[in-house]
């Protein structure tokens, strides 16, 4: 038995890498295939791969720890993932199956790594994911029923700013760390304000994109960013800034705004560097973490060791020391995964995240409603830029900003807000198809015209 176990452990890392490579290939292939049956087949195959990876991961954990709890947790998670796919398939058949598959794939990788780092945290994270999924399940339905989301611009503004200010005051007065505690539940409001912020910008620009409206929106958006910088949540501040800039560009269609915004952003980054010592510290550690390896540079250097040790195929699940990185389960999940699963596996994760982003941009470009197009772009940028910040940060390509990898990192607020974000996008996929059906009349006339044209050519 010992020998079989060893062989399985040794081979597993190559199997993991191969499976995820195939999954990633299927994600991109699936989105370009025209034949619906073939596409459904590919999506089913993806689910099969996901369940295999999930099963293998837990099998290794179980064999390593020899604790029946892991088997139970596995079964619960299996049922959970299975139910998500089955329910969406039956209740919302028009949702993007690929987006759901990707979400489940990322979640299951996160669950495995989290269970490996801390069983208790994995249980907690799993429960939050269940709650989040239940909440998010009503979102597509809500989007369909309520058509007036675009009218509440100032409500979004007030709620968003109020939440951020409460965190700022909390951190200033009580020294709390970006967390709001209500009873037993701790929430990281910035995670949710991200979505509210997108709704706010979209409502504002949906109304008008004249100069006055742009100025007002910019001031409010700037206030969000400044509060976040003041509360030392630099990652979120950057995300808000980039999201605002991209949405402005999308709404006004003026490249000048994009370039001007980038220049303004660079200037204010320099100002922030001069003004805030915590910004300078981050940059200093980024440039040379080795000098500060004992204190502020400890985390990032451990992260680099982690990725470096992983090399192409990883050291194998449970064979590395990812727990050497302080709070690996939050901001450094990507490094931990790279150490044990390898760079090939991690590159696939990057590509899967990119696939999600492409699906979001895709729905944005197909939305006929201005408001929803802006929302889709905003959410896509929120998601994409967050992935860029965390992955780029842990490998020291850019300074660390301390944001999470959606669906993979530990953190309840991050998990729930990511699930909601994906649910809104799915809601749009569903709406868009309904829209398509109701617009069939217009289409018909269009078609006739084309037929006439063809006739004329003949």
């Amino acid at each position, binding site marked *: 038995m010992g020998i079989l176990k060893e062989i399985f452990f040794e081979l597993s890392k190559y199997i993991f890498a191969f499976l995820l490579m195939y999954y990633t290939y299927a994600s991109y292939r699936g989105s370009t295939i025209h034949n619906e049956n073939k596409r459904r087949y590919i999506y089913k195959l993806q689910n099969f791969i996901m369940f295999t990876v999930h099963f293998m991961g837990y099998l290794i954990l179980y064999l390593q720890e020899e604790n029946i709890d892991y088997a139970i947790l596995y079964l619960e998670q299996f049922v959970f993932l299975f139910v998500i796919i089955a329910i969406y398939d039956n209740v919302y058949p028009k949702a993007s199956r690929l987006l759901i598959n990707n979400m489940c794939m990322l979640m299951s990788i996160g669950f495995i790594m989290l269970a490996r780092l801390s069983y208790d945290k994995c249980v907690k994270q799993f429960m939050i994911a269940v709650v989040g999924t239940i909440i998010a399940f009503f979102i597509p339905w809500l989007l369909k029923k309520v058509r007036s989301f675009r009218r509440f611009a100032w409500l979004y503004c007030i709620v968003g700013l109020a939440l951020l200010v409460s965190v700022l005051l909390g951190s200033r007065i009580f020294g709390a760390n970006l967390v709001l505690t209500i009873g037993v539940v701790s929430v990281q409001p910035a995670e949710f304000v991200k979505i509210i912020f997108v709704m706010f910008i979209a409502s504002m620009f949906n109304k008008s994109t004249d100069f006055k409206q742009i100025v007002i929106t910019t001031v409010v958006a700037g206030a969000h960013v400044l509060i976040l910088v003041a509360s030392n949540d630099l990652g979120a501040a950057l995300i808000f800034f980039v999201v605002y800039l991209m949405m402005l560009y999308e709404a006004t269609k003026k490249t000048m705004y994009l370039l001007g915004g980038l220049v303004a952003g660079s200037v204010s980054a320099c100002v922030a560097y001069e003004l805030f010592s915590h910004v300078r510290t981050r940059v200093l550690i980024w440039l040379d973490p080795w000098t500060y390896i004992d204190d502020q540079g400890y985390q990032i250097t451990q992260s680099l*060791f982690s990725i470096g040790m992983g090399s192409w195929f990883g050291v194998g699940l449970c064979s590395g020391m990812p727990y050497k990185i302080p709070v690996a389960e939050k901001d450094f999940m990507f490094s931990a995964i790279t150490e044990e699963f390898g760079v090939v596996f991690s590159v696939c994760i990057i590509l899967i995240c990119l696939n999600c982003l492409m699906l979001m941009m895709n729905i944005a470009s197909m939305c006929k409603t201005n408001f929803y197009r802006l929302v889709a772009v905003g959410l896509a940028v929120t998601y994409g830029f967050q992935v860029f910040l965390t992955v780029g940060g842990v490998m020291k390509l850019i300074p660390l900003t301390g944001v999470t990898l959606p669906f993979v990192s530990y953190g309840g607020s991050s998990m729930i807000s990511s699930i909601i974000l994906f649910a809104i996008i799915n809601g749009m996929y569903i709406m868009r198809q309904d829209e398509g059906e109701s617009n069939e009349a217009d289409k018909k006339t269009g078609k006739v015209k084309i037929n006439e044209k063809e006739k004329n050519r003949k």
Partner: protein
Amino acid sequence: MKQTKKQGKSKSMKKKKIESDMYDKAARNKETNTISFIFVGLFMILAGYLIYFSAFIGPDVINNSYNKRIDNLSERVVRGEILSADGNVLASTTTDADGNENRVYPYGSVFSHVVGLASHGKSGIEKLSNFFLLSANANVLEQIANDVSSTKAVGDNVVTTLNVSLQQAAYNALGNNKGAVVVMEPSTGKILAMVSKPDYDPNDADAMMNEWITYDSADSVLLNRATQGLYPPGSTFKILTTIEFIRENPQYNSFNYSCTGSTTTKGASTIHCFNETVHGNEDLNRAFANSCNSAFATIGQTLNVQNYKTLCESFAFNNDLPIGIEYNKSSFKLDTSSNVSEIMETSIGQGRTQITPIHNLMIVATIANKGVMMQPYFVDKVVTTDNQVVQQYNPTEYKKLMTEQEAKTLTGYMRSVVTMGTGSSFKNSSYTMVGKTGSAQYDSSENYHSWFVGFAPEENPQIAISVILEGGYTNVASAQVVAKKVTDAYFSK
């Protein structure tokens, strides 16, 4: 017509459904396209950098004492061997019947500092190549077989640049004196020999370590004096003073000085020539060959202190050395606020200037290598147990520091040191030695550290050498005698 329309309609409906997941490029507007491209670009950078990191940066990064993951490797891998350039084993690991591993050093104390220790905090090449020694890159099937049978894999071997016979010659030449000898190939930076005394037998580390660490730094056996010992450079520093003088005075050939055995500047201290020898009338070449303190203290006062400092810092004073094993930084303390006495003392290599033997070697090797300083290195390649190369190290330029002409001029002066100056031990050698002697005063006693730095042959330098003998040395006249024994051994092979 009606039918066609219907068909058209149903087709379009079908198509709609199919298109639902597609990246429909035609439907996209310019802005969404631009944003998509930006993010595709960002993600490609992420993936590309991750691959680049894994291929090129990661292997260097992980070899760090803060990386506890490497210690973890020793549970699965038997530490590989350290070999000399010609394949002699300098360190290997034996496993006894009970599975206890023991690190064995066949040459005992001869290679003590440079090979270093694999335990007790690690040092030398054992530390430098720690990760490679604990990585088994021999064939994959064998590794899996090892995993399965739970026998340990055997780590890769590290082939050093060290030459056993030269190391032994240097070890014997130094005798029982405290000091260090370092020998390098100037064109590549390969370290051929490195000896530091007093030494220790690494085979006794487990039993003796507790005693060794109690020695103070003057007697410490653990200190690698070749890279960690800081000494006043003495007259060897006149090399840098000369370079600065030549740069500031294009007419340096017409330099003339009349030595009376000492020089006194008003309000500053008096500088004496060694043994108060009166050197008489000298040009720059002769002043250098005679190592005339009076002349160089006078030269020193004419120099632009800021430029002098810049020159020394470009030669890595006050800077990190690119050598990979533990070392200390050399220091040059002169600046524009220094007084005349300090300037005079500094220009003859006294004052507060401090240098390590390997750094002095790098400077003299720069002259041998036509003005290009090479990075010294100890490891030529890493090979698997079946001799496949895992990693090959190539010579690396550190900096181009002098013009070829400057190097040639300095070489000429250093040749004069041997033919008509203080380096007379090499006068009758079969090879053309060039070099610079030095005597460094380190306290108020009559004891001097003795220095020699040089290279040979003059025309086509093959080795460069740096020797320090700490004050109070016995059985040997000076550092140049030690150096000669080593270079003789090299050229008599």
